[in-house]
């Protein structure tokens, strides 16, 4: 597989490190060729990771170096009682090598960098992509350079250093582009934009210079969901969204399966944004083709803090086929993230909580019927919510001594309290919803 195609005008390009169509300046995507249903048995015979979808991946090296990324659990949700959705599945991306969905895209990007003879890889991130680049670069033997804002705290930098990444703090100077894209730091953003004009540096940026390949990693989420459901598509997919890329590329992934005859229907796509940063939902409501950029977006969900969503207009196209979009307060997302951890035993990041909160609202609004099968994407593990743990002043943990009487007394009072308020549900029965759900 080696052909690239302009998303807007369809111009074809041979494989190269290109990001934009030279005819219309539209984004360029990888595309699949000559895949039919016979590929199913080949896929099923391979090791369970996203690399089992080899025929769909834009790599020429069949022995790509990776971290067995993907093949994350698709868990049937039994206990999110109040939601009352019969066929609810949680696609939990927290079991990826660096605990987020970005491992999929970084894994493909880095292998492409190797194919293009790069010996180093760069990124401008302090979050999911940075962690993933550091880890995959270490695994593949590439040198990684991670550009971070000048004020990045050492707690974020240290884990990257432990993988052997070279972290560089980029300080502001006059003439920096005032950028509202991902990362939202003018200095780092200006630097990587300027780097794009200097291929001789031989330091491709994982999600910019290699973005065509990076995007194809998101498609593997769709392949997996379909296979895990027995090669069929769910009725609905709910995605927490920032840049619009995940939605557009998951939509493309399902379309590829559909066109190859591997599934018979396409799902409807629903996106959930934080109300502090919802340019795509805003465009949907105001019937704009292209989202208007938002200055200084505010949300605790770092992966969703994208004021200028690069793939916003394409995400809007993906949800037009029967889907919808909704904005939810961070506070509600955090409450749902904790509820999922308590009820299902998996702790998602806040953006995952936001997605489930959005699903509840979409059901209440009649946009999604509780009888339809629905998959919610939980992009990362809750351990990624670094900032919040540090700043929550209300966290109180009881203290006891090693004296066993201390523990006995504590358990007795605790159990009497619980006996008076029966909040535990029996498996399979609807629970009494916690206070914040009842209002």
């Amino acid at each position, binding site marked *: 597989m080696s052909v690239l195609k302009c998303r807007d005008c369809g111009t074809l390009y041979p494989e190269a490190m290109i990001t934009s169509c030279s005819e*219309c300046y539209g984004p360029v995507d990888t595309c699949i060729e000559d895949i039919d249903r016979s590929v199913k048995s080949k896929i099923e015979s391979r090791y369970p990771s996203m690399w089992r979808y080899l025929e769909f991946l834009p790599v020429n090296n069949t022995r790509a170096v990776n971290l067995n990324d993907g093949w994350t659990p698709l868990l049937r949700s039994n206990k999110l009682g109040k939601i009352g959705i019969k066929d609810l599945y949680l696609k939990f991306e927290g079991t990826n090598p660096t605990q987020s969905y970005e491992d999929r895209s970084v894994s493909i990007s880095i292998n492409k960098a190797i194919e293009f003879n790069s010996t180093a890889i760069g990124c401008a991130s302090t979050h999911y992509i940075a962690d993933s680049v550091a880890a995959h670069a270490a695994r593949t033997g590439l040198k990684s350079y991670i550009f971070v804002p000048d004020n990045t705290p050492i707690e974020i930098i240290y884990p990257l250093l432990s993988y052997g990444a070279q972290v560089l703090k980029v300080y502001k100077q006059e003439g920096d582009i005032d*950028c509202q894209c*991902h990362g939202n730091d003018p200095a780092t953003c200006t630097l990587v934009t300027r780097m794009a004009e200097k291929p001789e540096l031989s330091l491709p940026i994982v999600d910019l210079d290699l973005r065509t390949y990076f995007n194809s990693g998101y498609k593997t989420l769709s392949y997996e969901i379909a296979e895990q459901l027995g090669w069929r598509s769910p009725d609905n997919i709910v995605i927490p969204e920032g840049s619009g890329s995940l939605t557009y590329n998951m939509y493309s992934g399902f379309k590829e399966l559909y066109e190859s005859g591997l599934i018979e229907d396409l799902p409807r796509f629903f996106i959930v944004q934080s109300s502090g940063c919802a340019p795509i939902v805003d465009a949907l409501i105001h019937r704009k083709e292209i989202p208007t*950029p938002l200055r200084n977006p505010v949300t605790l969900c770092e992966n969703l803090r994208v004021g200028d969503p690069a793939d916003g207009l394409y995400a809007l196209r993906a949800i037009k086929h029967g889907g919808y979009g909704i904005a939810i307060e961070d506070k509600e997302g955090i409450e749902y993230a904790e509820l999922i951890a308590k009820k299902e035993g998996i702790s998602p990041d806040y953006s995952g909580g936001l997605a489930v909160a959005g699903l509840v609202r979409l059901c209440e609004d009649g946009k999604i019927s509780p009888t339809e099968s629905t998959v919610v994407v939980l992009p990362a593990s809750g351990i990624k919510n670094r900032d919040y743990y540090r700043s929550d002043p209300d966290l109180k943990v009881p203290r006891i001594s090693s004296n066993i009487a201390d523990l006995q007394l504590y358990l007795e009072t605790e159990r009497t309290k619980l006996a008076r308020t029966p909040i535990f549900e029996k498996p399979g029965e609807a629970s009494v919803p916690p206070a914040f759900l009842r209002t």
Partner: protein
Amino acid sequence: MLRSIKQSNESDHIRWFREKRVMTIREVAVRFFGVISSETGHKEIKICTDAKNIRELVVEICDKYNSLKKKLLSSEPSALNKHVRCYVNGMDIRLIREYETRLMDGDKILFLVSFQGG
């Protein structure tokens, strides 16, 4: 001042017009980034222009580089291609006054193709 008017032998009206015109000529630096510069052949140009805003400047640039015209402009009248970003002194024009953003002498204008990632 008085003497110069007499020497130039121009009517007050024409003189006023000429001075006004001189005042509205601005020199701006225009930077074409990445794939756009392959169309212009230059990465950076200095333009002396009487364009009052970005809308007029874009028209002037398109007159100068004919092959850029069909790529820089969208099919809708006086709108940039949706993949092209324009910055004036580092500010995205969509966050200020879009195409009506006023030009000042010494402004730095940047055109680039949006290519941000996930």
